[in-house]
């Protein structure tokens, strides 16, 4: 079976902290198979052209969230960027809005901290023993929060979000979407605790509904929707609080 190879030039951002003052681009000429994705080309570069190139990847099937990077200026999973959709030159850069550790590897500590701070786990409504058995949940109750469980923490949404870029203290789309996931879960009773961060200035209120996060999300989580619903809920809470109600 003959294969149609196409030579594609990859302009890849390099940054070596031990020797570089700032990042620069390096050009690689790669003979690409028709069915390849950008990740395959990066692996070719590492295997045959330049073993010093550093980048994250793992599953090669868009479920682990490791291989996020800017491809022709768009936040993309490199394992999901099919070369048939790109031209003869492809620009590859590390994810926007994150500090560059080395080459295509970014520092994601800020995100991990924010994600953890939202208490992304079931906080029971009341203490529960093992003897009480499992929680029961209808398909409708599951459907309510299901889409927000699909996040693979790939951080494309943070790279797309201009408010995160301009105001790095913003908690951000994925973290707020995960908070929403637990708030909507019928088993959970921790909404009030999460509101301390969700309803703070760095929570939903830093968002101006650009919507780029939902546009680039490879799993269709729709974090923008989670945040807007969070704004409405927080506003209702706020005014109910005046009336002596609120939750």
């Amino acid at each position: 079976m003959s294969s149609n190879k196409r030579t594609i030039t990859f302009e890849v951002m390099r940054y070596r902290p031990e020797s570089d003052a700032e990042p620069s681009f390096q050009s690689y000429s790669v003979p690409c198979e028709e069915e390849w994705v950008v990740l395959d080309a990066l692996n070719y570069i590492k295997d045959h052209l330049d073993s010093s190139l550093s980048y994250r990847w793992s599953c090669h099937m868009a479920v682990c969230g490791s291989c996020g990077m800017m491809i022709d200026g768009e936040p993309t999973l490199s394992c999901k960027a099919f070369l048939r959709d790109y031209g003869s030159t492809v620009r590859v850069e590390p994810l926007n809005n994150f500090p560059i550790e080395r080459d295509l590897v970014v520092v994601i500590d800020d995100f991990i901290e924010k994600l953890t701070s939202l208490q992304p786990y079931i906080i029971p409504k009341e203490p529960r023993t093992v003897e009480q058995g499992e929680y029961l949940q209808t398909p409708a109750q599951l459907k309510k929060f299901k889409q927000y469980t699909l996040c693979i923490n790939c951080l494309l949404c943070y790279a797309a979000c201009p408010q995160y870029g301009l105001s790095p203290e913003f908690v951000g789309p994925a973290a707020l979407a995960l908070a929403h996931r637990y708030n909507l879960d019928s088993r959970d009773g921790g909404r009030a605790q999460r509101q301390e961060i969700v309803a703070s200035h760095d929570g939903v209120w830093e968002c101006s509904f650009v919507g780029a996060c939902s546009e680039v999300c490879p799993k269709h989580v729709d974090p923008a929707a989670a945040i807007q619903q969070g704004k409405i809920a927080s506003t209702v809470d706020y005014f109910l609080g005046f009336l002596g109600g609120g939750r």
Partner: protein
Amino acid sequence: MSRKPYVRPIPKTSWFMRQGRYKRYMAREVTCLFIGAYTAVLTVGLMRLAESEAAYNAFLTALKAPGSILFHVVAFLFAVYHSSTWFNVTHQAMPIQRGDEFVAPGVIVGTHYAIWAVVSLVVLLVAGV
């Protein structure tokens, strides 16, 4: 091995020029300037209406100036852009779950557009088109 993470600077004023979706976002945001300006014009009109018939008629005459009509045409276009961008995201802000499924986004968005058409028609009729 020493770490020296590099932070790429983001231009505070021109960041939105980097992507089409950011430019469309800024166009949406800028609609508020035209809606605000029109609301100010409307307020002046109300004030003239409260003042006297002569003042109100002078206001109507001022609206006929080519500059005024041009402003209102541009404001109209931006207002329509505000409306469509607003309605297009209603399904994200107000998801409706019916049993095990969510109402299709197109239905939520489409209903808003339909109401917009009806409202516009009613206002036109009441104003005496």
